[in-house]
């Protein structure tokens, strides 16, 4: 349903171009939940924005293709892209507080999503729209939606705000939901509720979800597939259970070692040493090399590419070439 | 023949030489040796509006080696107190003289203890002459008296005689038969237009009131004068001529009789008689005369000596004065006759809103800080027969628009929104001169500018220093550079076109050498 091929998105800066996403390829089937995992700044969010062509200037997509249901979003006219946004592909953002417009009532913000895409398809009355909004609010678990409809975002708790955002995203029954760390800003208990909600949506409506998170633990519980990103590139990809059980890429391994819940008892947590490299002037050699504990002399010498290692698994490491 | 001639020349030369030595010896005795010379040092006081002139004067005096400071005072009341205490030295000052009569200028400024005498000048001969000038009724005699005063003052030099400002006004070329008046009033009675029948005048400030008895304001008078006539009026060059009064006579210095012209009607059709004249003046001179306990502000300084106005018959009135008052005619120009019956019926307040007079135009509508509109009164008696062009007004409608900002006023004239404007600043004159549709007109104003020197204390207790000051200042240069050229040099204290002005005196010339010599004689160092 979604096939991203060789996507590269660049941000020019005074010191040179930053490739936030480089030669990213990814595909997602109907009804699937794909986790996109990585440290902050690795290009996960930019990937999502690129799919909706919402990368803010001066950033721009310089190459690649993004096929959604067989059509390349990157070659569509702006008006066509707009028709897809919110209708076929909807997005749930990271920080619900700043994402809801503070000056409009929550219910009206949900209703707006409905209205945007119903203009061409016959008239719906305001009251009908409200009814739809109320049932949406109920569906995402907002209690007493009749009174909540007229409240402003600041009168909502964080979890409720996120539910409202999900309601906005679901308004037009999208086929694909892009969720950008939807639980990061929330308490742990609320996180679980939101994840449960998303799972339910996925199972009840068959909505595919591209789930961005820096939290491998969350991804492991929630996703079917997982893509690990590092410095703008996918380094490992595969079914979630297999990747967790048997990580191939040293970075994935490192990530797994640094997660408390997944570490076996009595083993020490071991964070990955070093920092994410400067994204300016990266070559297509391995960018994890400087932090890698299985570094070899060749790593710095030749480019590495994503290798299909069978069983739906891919990895970008010189060890597997 | 030749030999005899030579001898005569020899004798003459010898005589001249002797004379020269003798006179030379006499003069050389006076100036002290140069090592005893002091530096002349004093302060010039002024208010802000005279600052530019004060600075220019100081600059010129410094070139002579005089140490001069300029002090600008913010508060006239404080300065006045210092002046009255005889503490100050030299003051840049000015004095209005709209009656054009020396009584209003020389008496207050030079009489011992006069109310404006900040030079503290005191001269028994001048006092005597001024008293006779104030009480006399014979014009020729008064003229002779005041000329003698001018001669004395010229030599005594209690002032540095300065200049008189000119009024600059302007009109569209379509305006006919209009000249600016020396008292700056704009009378539209005889003015006509080559295009259209509505004439717009741009005036420079808000009109205080439309009641002739309830303002102290020349702008108000300008507007009122087009709807109301007085017993007498003034020609543009300042001469008093009959208007509502057809003739008059001074029965004694304190009793004047006026004959009122017959056939004059107010705008409501009622005839104007002695009752209206008496009522007009009673309203002003009586305490609380405006009703509601209010007194007219037009008595103090304008009608003080008038104790009673007596009706002799329907067309004759007599003015009883507390003291001789030679400027009575000039002062009566500033009072306009109002209709007794109407004012009594509606009251002063209503009258000011809907004024009715006996002038060439009748009131239509008015907002005092915006505009006053008036229309020709067809029943007008024609105005003063002594000014050419008597009869009803030529234009159908006159509008006085209040335009306080000078640039805007000039713009209104240039854009044709106004036909006549008051008070053009000198710096905008070239702009108007270039405009083919406008013309600038100037007239001598009624205000004299001068430097008053305190004669009671050094350095100005020495007449030589005072004269030196008169020689030391190049007024022509100041008039040219500071005043834009629109001023007239004074040859004494009086206005260039005033009554009794001494034409035989010529202004003190700019002569720095003479000034230096006088200063040295007085014991001061010069450069």
């Amino acid at each position, binding site marked *: 349903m979604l096939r991203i091929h060789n996507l590269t998105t660049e941000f020019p800066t005074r010191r040179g171009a930053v490739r936030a996403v480089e030669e990213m390829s990814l595909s997602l089937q109907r009804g699937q939940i794909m986790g996109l995992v990585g440290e902050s700044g690795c290009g996960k969010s930019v990937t999502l924005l690129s799919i*909706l062509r*919402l990368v*803010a200037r001066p950033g721009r997509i310089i190459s690649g293709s993004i096929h959604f249901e067989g059509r390349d979003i990157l070659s569509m006219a702006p008006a066509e892209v*707009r*028709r897809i*946004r*919110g*209708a076929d592909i*909807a*997005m749930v*953002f*990271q*920080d619900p507080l*700043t*994402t*809801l*417009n*503070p*000056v*409009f009532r929550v219910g009206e913000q949900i209703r*707006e999503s409905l209205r*945007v895409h119903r203009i061409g398809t016959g008239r719906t009355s305001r009251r009908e729209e409200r009814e739809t909004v109320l049932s949406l609010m109920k569906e995402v678990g907002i209690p007493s939606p009749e009174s909540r409809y007229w409240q*402003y975002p*600041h009168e909502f708790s964080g979890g409720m705000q996120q539910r409202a*955002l999900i309601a*906005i995203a679901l308004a037009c029954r999208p086929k694909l939901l892009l969720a950008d760390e939807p639980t990061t800003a929330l308490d742990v208990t609320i996180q679980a509720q939101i994840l449960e909600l998303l799972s339910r949506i996925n199972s009840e409506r068959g909505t595919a979800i591209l789930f961005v998170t820096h939290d491998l633990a969350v991804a492991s519980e929630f996703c079917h597939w997982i893509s690990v990103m590092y410095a703008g590139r996918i380094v490992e990809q595969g079914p979630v259970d297999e990747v967790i059980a048997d990580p191939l890429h040293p970075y994935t391994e490192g990530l797994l070692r640094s997660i408390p819940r997944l570490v076996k008892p009595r083993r020490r947590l071991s964070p990955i040493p070093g920092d994410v490299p400067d994204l300016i002037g990266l070559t297509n050699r391995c960018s994890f090399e400087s932090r890698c504990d299985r570094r070899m002399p060749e790593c710095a010498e030749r480019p590495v590419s994503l290798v299909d290692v069978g069983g739906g698994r891919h990895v970008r490491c010189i060890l597997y070439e | 023949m030749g030999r005899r001639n030579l001898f005569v020349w020899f004798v003459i030369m010898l005589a001249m030489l002797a004379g020269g030595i003798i006179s030379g010896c006499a003069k050389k005795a006076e100036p002290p040796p140069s090592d005893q010379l002091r530096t002349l040092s004093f302060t010039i006081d002024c208010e802000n509006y005279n600052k530019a002139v004060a600075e220019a004067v100081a600059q010129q005096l410094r070139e002579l080696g005089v140490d001069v400071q300029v002090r600008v005072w913010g*508060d*006239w*009341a*404080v300065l006045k107190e210092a002046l009255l205490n005889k503490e100050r030295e030299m003051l840049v000052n000015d*004095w*209005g003289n709209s009656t054009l009569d020396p009584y*209003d200028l020389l008496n*207050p400024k030079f009489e011992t203890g006069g*109310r*404006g005498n900040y030079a503290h000048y005191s001269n028994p001969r001048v006092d005597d002459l001024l008293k006779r000038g104030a009480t006399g009724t014979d014009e020729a005699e008064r003229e002779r008296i005041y000329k003698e005063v001018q001669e004395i003052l010229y030599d005594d030099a209690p002032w540095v005689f300065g200049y008189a400002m000119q009024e600059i006004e302007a009109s569209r070329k379509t305006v006919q038969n209009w000249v600016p008046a020396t008292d700056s009033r704009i009378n539209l009675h005889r003015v006509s237009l080559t295009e259209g029948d*509505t004439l717009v005048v741009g005036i420079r*400030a808000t009109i205080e*009131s439309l009641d002739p008895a309830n303002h*102290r304001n020349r702008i108000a008078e300008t507007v009122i004068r087009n709807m109301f006539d007085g017993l007498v009026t003034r020609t543009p060059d300042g001469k008093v001529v009959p208007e509502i009064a057809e003739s008059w006579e001074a029965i004694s210095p304190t009793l004047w009789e006026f004959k009122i012209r017959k056939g004059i009607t107010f705008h409501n059709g009622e005839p104007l008689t002695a009752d209206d004249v008496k009522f007009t003046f009673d309203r002003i001179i009586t305490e609380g005369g405006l009703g509601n306990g209010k007194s007219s502000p037009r008595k*103090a*300084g*304008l009608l003080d000596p008038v104790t009673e106005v007596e009706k002799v018959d329907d067309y004759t009135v007599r003015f009883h004065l507390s003291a001789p008052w030679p400027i009575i005619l000039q002062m009566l120009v500033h009072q306009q006759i109002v209709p007794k019956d109407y004012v009594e019926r509606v009251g002063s307040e209503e009258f000011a809103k809907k004024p009715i007079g006996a002038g060439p135009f009748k009131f239509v509508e008015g*907002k005092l*800080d*915006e*505009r006053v*509109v008036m229309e020709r009164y067809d029943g007008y008696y024609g105005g003063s027969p002594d000014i050419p062009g008597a009869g009803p007004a030529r234009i159908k409608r006159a509008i006085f*628009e*209040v*335009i*306080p*900002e000078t*640039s*805007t006023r000039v*713009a*209104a004239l240039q*854009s*044709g*929104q106004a036909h006549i404007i008051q008070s053009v600043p000198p710096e905008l004159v070239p702009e108007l001169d270039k405009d083919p549709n406008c013309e600038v007109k100037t007239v001598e104003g009624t205000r004299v500018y001068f430097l008053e020197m305190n004669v009671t204390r050094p350095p100005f207790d020495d007449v030589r220093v005072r004269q030196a000051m008169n020689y030391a200042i190049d007024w022509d240069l100041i008039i040219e550079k500071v005043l834009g050229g629109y001023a007239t040099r004074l040859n004494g204290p009086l206005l260039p076109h005033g009554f009794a002005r001494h034409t035989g005196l010529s202004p003190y010339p700019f002569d720095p050498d003479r000034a230096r010599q006088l200063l040295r004689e007085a014991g001061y160092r010069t450069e």
Partner: protein
Amino acid sequence: MRGLRVLERILSTIPIVFGVAVIVFCVMRFTPGDPIDVMMGREGHVSQEQIDALRREFGLDKPIHVQLYMFLSRAVRGDLGNSLTKHRPVSALIRERLPATVELALGALVFSLVLAIPIGVISAVRQYSFVDRASMAAAFFGISMPAFWLGIISIIVFSVRLGILPSYGRLPYGLEPARVTGLYVLDSVLTGNVSSLVAALRHLLLPSVTLGAPMAAIVARVMRSSMLEVLRQDYVMLARAKGLTEWAVITRHALVNALIPTVTVVGVQTGVLLGGNMIVETIFSWPGIGRLAVDAIFNRDYPLVQGVVMVYALTFVLANLAVDILYTYINPKINL
């Protein structure tokens, strides 16, 4: 609830207005110059008795605190005394001239907002474009240009050189519409008087532009920077992600948020507008409160100055109150 809070806010302005009244009173009394002196002129043959009589008539002979008490106790009843020079009640004089000033202020406000908000928005959306640079340069010009100069230049250009706009006044004689509100533009609309409407608008144009220029400049700059700020916000991204057109994103989601700081600035600028109105009303012979104030100050007309300054203070307080109330409508997070 909101009504009650508004009432509370209004009541809380009373001490401010009272304080202003006292300060104005004192400042006027300690300013050099005496109203009677100014009235009588310097050369007048006025005796001390006559001056004293006048002082008594206007109550100027009493001690200052008594004068202050008299002024305040009358002011509470809406009686601001009588003008010394215009011989009429101050409140009547103000009431007469208020519509002219209100009309001019509204003209300036409308001009500056209608011009500045779109400019600010376009400059932000097209940051660093030619439009942005040109309009910000113009805004800088607008802030630094004195009203006096701008007024005179616009008169010279538009009424003297081009002859297309009048240079002074509110309307030519004979075109006044029937009085409803005293605002000529509004009245001529209400009475359907087209020729008055055209004339009134033509007269209003130059003074409004002159008065509104500095405000337009400031509003444009504030609008631009707050718009730039807002455009970076997540909710703008969400609006785009919903599939809204860029126009809808900017005019609906971004604009309302960007207006919040702008409204504050407009409130503060109302004070600047009031200060400018004395100059602009004088230049354009606009018969409003500003010219009344200038006349009154020059003539040391104490009661009139006090009255006019009270009106200014009240307007300023009310403008800020209006901003506060407006705030609660556009920014739901703020309560009064």
